[in-house]
């Protein structure tokens, strides 16, 4: 099903969606765009390139409470926080970020133990993807094409949006998406010409140019394994790295977390909080031993995990080329340049 709506009617679309569930969409904030729960339909703003923090935070928030307790009380009084399953509409996700959900599913619900918090939100969410603007050039940090992701790939979204002039075309990709589009009143029917434009955009998205040539995941996997003991290479690659956590926090496919008990004024929560392999204490063991004390060891782990170990174990590179790690790195460490350099070594 293909529908359309004028861009100036975006608030109408947003309020329609708000009637179907909690709407989470890009909002302009003090420091750039972020996905936020919409309380006023006018907040939704499609004039963004991408958000600072990836939409993974919608399914896997930076802080997630599991148990709430009060100190000095019997353990039985502690209460478990149940996973939320309220209907959620995630609006305006870029194709590379949509792809990241599939990769994250591997860890949270696809293999081994299922994370009920992730799964409940994922199942209750309708994803509305949004194509990048193909009339502009890609940002210098992006390289999703290198990883085989198009700038307008609708796969993975329930509804996919493409902008055509002053109109927004919305196409249902799944049955859930179709049901949602049917239930929104303000949408107009689209013409055959719109349908052609939509399909052409999807096709053009596959030829859209971002940095780097395409990679052979298997070759990269092997190469990074071979380079593991080449300390000189990794020291050079990590010479500028500050070992902060911006790259991992902004990343759509980084999923490491820590479980902490945080108590303040007698009230406490057992919660998970994002952690980062770039932090010194990430690998600190109870004995005091730390297997990764050096910056190069931590950066090697991050790159190895994404482009080598992950491929070996799950068959897919754990990166979607959104470019956030490079864009927000205070010293411009460029992850894929390091992979490219490795291939030349």
């Amino acid at each position, binding site marked *: 099903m293909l529908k359309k709506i004028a861009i100036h009617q975006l608030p109408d679309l947003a309020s329609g969606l708000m009637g179907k569930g909690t709407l989470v969409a890009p909002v302009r904030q003090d420091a750039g765009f972020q996905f936020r729960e919409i309380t006023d339909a006018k907040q939704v703003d499609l004039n963004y390139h991408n958000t600072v923090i990836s939409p993974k935070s919608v399914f896997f928030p930076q*802080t997630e409470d599991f148990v709430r307790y009060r100190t000095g009380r019997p353990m039985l009084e502690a209460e478990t926080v149940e996973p939320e399953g309220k209907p959620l509409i995630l609006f305006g996700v870029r194709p590379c970020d949509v792809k990241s959900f599939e990769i994250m599913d591997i860890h949270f619900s696809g293999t081994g133990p299922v994370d009920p918090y992730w799964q409940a939100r994922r199942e209750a969410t309708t994803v509305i993807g949004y194509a990048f603007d193909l009339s502009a050039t890609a940002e*210098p940090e992006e390289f999703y094409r290198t990883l085989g992701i198009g700038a307008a790939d609708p796969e993975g979204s329930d509804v996919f949006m493409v902008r055509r002039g002053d109109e927004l075309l919305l196409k249902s990709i799944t049955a859930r998406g179709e049901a949602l589009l049917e239930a929104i009143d303000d949408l107009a029917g689209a013409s055959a010409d719109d349908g052609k434009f939509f399909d052409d955009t999807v096709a053009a998205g596959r030829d859209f140019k971002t940095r780097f040539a395409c990679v052979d995941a298997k070759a990269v996997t092997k190469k990074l394994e071979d380079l593991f003991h080449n300390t000189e290479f990794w020291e050079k690659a990590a010479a500028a790295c500050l070992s902060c956590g*911006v790259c991992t926090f902004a990343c759509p496919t980084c999923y490491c977390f820590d479980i902490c008990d945080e108590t*303040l004024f007698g009230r406490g929560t057992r919660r998970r909080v994002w952690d980062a392999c770039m*932090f*010194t*204490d990430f690998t600190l063991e109870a004995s005091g031993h730390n297997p990764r004390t050096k*910056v190069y060891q931590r950066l090697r782990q991050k790159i190895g995990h994404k482009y080598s170990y992950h491929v070996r174990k799950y068959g897919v590179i754990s990166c979607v080329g959104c470019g956030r790690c490079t864009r927000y790195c*205070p010293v411009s460490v460029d992850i894929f*340049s390091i992979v490219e350099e490795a291939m030349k070594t």
Partner: protein
Amino acid sequence: MAVSFQQIEERLRNEARRLLESGEVSLMLAWGKGYDENHPMPYVAKCPSDADGIVFNEYCTHNMARYLVRYPRGTRIAIAVKAADSRAVVQLIQEDKVKRHDLVILGIPAYGIRNPKTGEVVDGRTTCGLYNPVLYDILIGEEVHGQPASPPYTVLAEYEAMDKEARFAFWKKELDRCIRCYACRKACPMCYCDPCFIDQSKPRWGEKSPETAGNLMYHLTRFHHLAGRCVDCGECSRACPVDIPLYLFHKKVAKDCEAMFGQAAGMSIEDKPVLVHFRAEDTDNILK
């Protein structure tokens, strides 16, 4: 400037080649090519042929003094510094984190350096705004004469006009945005504690999650730990992915510190770190 960025780049390369060839130093800290022209990145030259990788352009904001403590004591290091960066080197020498005789300091007088993220000129609004390095062995370029176009503390006027409640509300709003990536402390040349207090678990000084309590604990402690030590290079604020104006607090503390003790951080190698140097004539205003 009388000397162009390109000429500075050329001279940095020549000096690097000479210093590494003669064995005077075992590495040189400068800037190198990043993923595009607007994003040069910190660079370490270890052999004469690495010298050609050195880059200097208007986006070389990074304070290379940050990397000094990464190398074992006694490593002979050449370091390229702009004005504020040189203050960090001086402060690190004062705090005995590096030895003066292990360093060859290449001072670069510069203005018109731009923040790669915003394109804005980095001046006294977000840094100390000085043009000339305060300490160097080799001058790359020519000293710039005249007062900085924007003095370091004018930007504080609006902040200082706020009362206590307004200031708290201001910082709460700004710091609530923090995602605790710790880019600020990692970019800071003076943040070298290992482990940082916020990473300690016994005792745990602050919460790990990015919420008001933990964020205030982390930032307010860090702000105060840098009292009299912050050289106002602005790296913390430029590193921040969510644009928290950390420099405002640092500037305010630096200004108060200067007023109370008549000493700004890292301005002279003869100075002792202000908060560990007791003098009978010191003001006791801090206790009021």
